[in-house]
C-alpha cells in the first residue's frame, strides 16, 4: 500500500465516532495489518468504511458476517 493511502487509512481508523473502534482499529494497524496480503488489506479498508455502530456490532460478536472476504479479518480484529 502506498504511504499516502496507508496514512489516510490510519487517520480513518484512529479518529472514529466510537472510542471502542479507535482502540481496536489502532491496535490492529499497529499489530496485524502488515501481516495481511493485498486482497485482505483491501477488505480491511472496506470494513473501516462501515458505519461505527455496525462495525462495532461485528467486532464485538453481536453480528456475524457471511462475506468470506471479511470473516478472517473480523476474526483477527476480535482477537487484536
Amino acid at each position, binding site marked *: 500500500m502506498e504511504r499516502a493511502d496507508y496514512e489516510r487509512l490510519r487517520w480513518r481508523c484512529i479518529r472514529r465516532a466510537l*472510542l471502542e473502534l479507535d482502540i481496536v482499529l489502532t491496535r490492529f494497524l499497529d499489530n496485524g495489518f502488515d501481516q495481511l496480503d493485498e486482497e485482505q488489506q483491501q477488505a480491511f479498508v472496506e470494513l473501516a468504511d462501515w458505519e461505527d455502530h455496525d462495525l462495532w456490532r461485528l467486532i464485538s460478536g453481536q453480528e456475524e458476517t457471511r462475506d468470506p472476504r471479511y470473516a478472517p479479518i473480523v476474526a483477527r480484529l476480535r482477537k487484536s
Partner: protein
Amino acid sequence: MSIPVLKFDAVIVGAGGAGLRSAIQLSEAGLKTAVLSKVFPTRSHTVAAQGGVAASLGNSEEDHWHWHMYDTVKGSDWLGDQDAIEFMVRKANECVVELEHYGMPFDRTDNGKIYQRPFGGHMSNFGEKPVRRSCAAADRTGHAMLHAMYQRNVKANTQFFVEWMALDLVRDAEGHVIGVTAMEMETGQVVIFHTRATIFATGGAGRIFYSSTNAFINTGDGLGMAARAGIPLEDMEFWQFHPTGVAGAGVLITEGVRGEGGILRNSSKERFMERYAPNAKDLASRDVVSRAMTTEINEGRGCGVNKDYVLLDITHLDPNTIMKRLPGIREIGLQFAGVDCIKEPLPVVPTCHYQMGGIPTHYSGRVVVPHNGDHNSIVPGFYAAGECACASVHGANRLGTNSLLDLLVFGKSAGDSAVEDLKSGKAHRELPKDAADKSLARIAALDSRKGGANVHETRLAMQRTMQTHAGVFRFGDLLKSGVEKILEVEKAARQLEITDKSMAWNTARTEALEMENLIEVAKATMLSAEARKESRGAHVRDDAPDTPEFPNGRNDQEWLKHTLFNSADNSITYKPVTMQPLTVEPIALKTRSY
C-alpha cells in the same frame, strides 16, 4: 508567505450535531457556508449518544417546559444561567419536531406520536415524580440525528471540507473574528477561510483525562483556538464522570452490571462500598460510588502495579445470566481489559464523560467576553454551540439527554444569529496581512524543532496529571500540586517535536496540533478547579464537605458565579450567574438532593 484564501459568508468548524444544525440555518438562508471537519460528518462523536433528546412533548404523559427547566436548573446545582435554560427548554419541542421533519426516525407510540422514555432526573411537577421526556431512535439517537441533518445540509448546498483541521481563529485589529486558518490533511496545505461569521461546534475535550469515554477525536480544538485568540474559557472545572470505565481504555461498563449484582472490590478484595454506603452499597448514586473508588485508590488500596484502579466483580454471577442480561460486557472485558469477566473481575476507574464548561456564549449563540465592565460583551463575528460552548445551561452538572438538546437548540440559535447579523449585507472585513502567520509559525516550529518533547509522552503526562489531580473527587493539596504539574506539562506541550515532516496525511503533525489544543483545556480545568474552594455539582472537593452551613459543600455566598480562565496570563475572573429567567420567576436556590 502567500497562502490561498477561500471566501465564504460563514464557516462552521465541526460537523457533529451542533455544526450540522447551524449549517442548515445558514445554507437555507442562502448564505455561502463552509463546514470543516476532521472526519466525515457522520463519524463525529455525536454518533455515540444513545440516551435520547429531552423535550416536554407530553406524548406519553403530562409534561411542561417549566418542569424541564426546574430539573435542568437543579441538575446544574444552580450554576446554569436561568435565561439560557428557559430559552433551551422552550425551544425543545420545536427543535425535535423539526428534526422529525428532516427525516429523523424517532421511536413511535401506537398512535404514531414520538415515543418518550423515562430518564434519570426527569421529573414532573417540579421534582415530584418521574416523567417520560426522552425522545430516542432505538439506541442510535445521535447517529440517526447526524444522518438526518447531513442529508438536509446536502440538499441545502452546504459545502463540506472533510478531513480538514482548523488551526487558529483570525481576528482583526478591532477584535472582530473574520475567519479561521485550516489545514487540508491530504495535502498539508494551509488555507485561510475568510468569512463574515465563524461558528465553533468542535465538541468536547474529554481526552485531557487518562480515563475518558470520549473518542480520540475529542481534543478540544475549538477551545484551544479560542484560548490562543484571547477568549476566556468558562466553568472548565466542571466535568461529568461515570463511575465504571475500563481502566486504561475508558470504555464504559454500563451501570446495569452493578444492578445485576456486580460488586466493587479493592486490592484486599474487600467490598469497600459497605463502608461508604451501608445500605445501597454498590448501587449508591454515581457520585457516591465514584468518590468511594477515588478514596480507595488515593489511600493506596487500588489494584495493579500502579494501584490505580479497583475491581468490578461479577464472577459470582451465573455465566448464563451475564451473557443474557449483560450483552456485550464479556466482549468489552476481553477486548479492553484482557479479562474474561466470568472468571476474573474487571479493572475499573471513574471515567470522564462530558464537559460542562466551554467558550462563553449568550443563548443566542454569540460568543461573549468581559469588556469595559460588561460581563457579556459580544465578540463580533464569532459564535459557538454544543459541547465546546458554555451557554450556560448545564452549569455544574448536566441533566441526562440535555446534551443532544443543547446542540439542536444552540446550533440552530447560533445559525439564526449569524443569519440575522449578516442581513445587513456588510462586506467581508479586510484580512490582516499576517492573518495566517501564527498558524504557519506553529507548523514550522513543529517541523524544525530538534530535541523537543514527544507528543505521545506529553499527552500521557497530561492525562495522568489530570486524572490524579483533578479527577471526579478532588483534594486541595492534590489540586495545588496539580497546578504545578500541569504548568510543567504545558512547557513540554509548547516544545513538541515530530519526526515525520511529510506534507500529505501527516498524522503525527495533526496529533501534535491537537495536543496544543488539549493542553489549553487541561490547564484551564486544573487552575479553575484549584481556585473554586467549594463543592458544587460535578466539582466535589474533600475540603468542602457537607455541613449544616454549606449543604453538599456548596457555598452560594462566595461561589455562585461563573469562572472565566484566561490562558495568556493564567488569570481567573468571575462573572455572575444569571438567576432571572426570560418570563417566569427565578427557580430559588435550595439544596440539591435526589
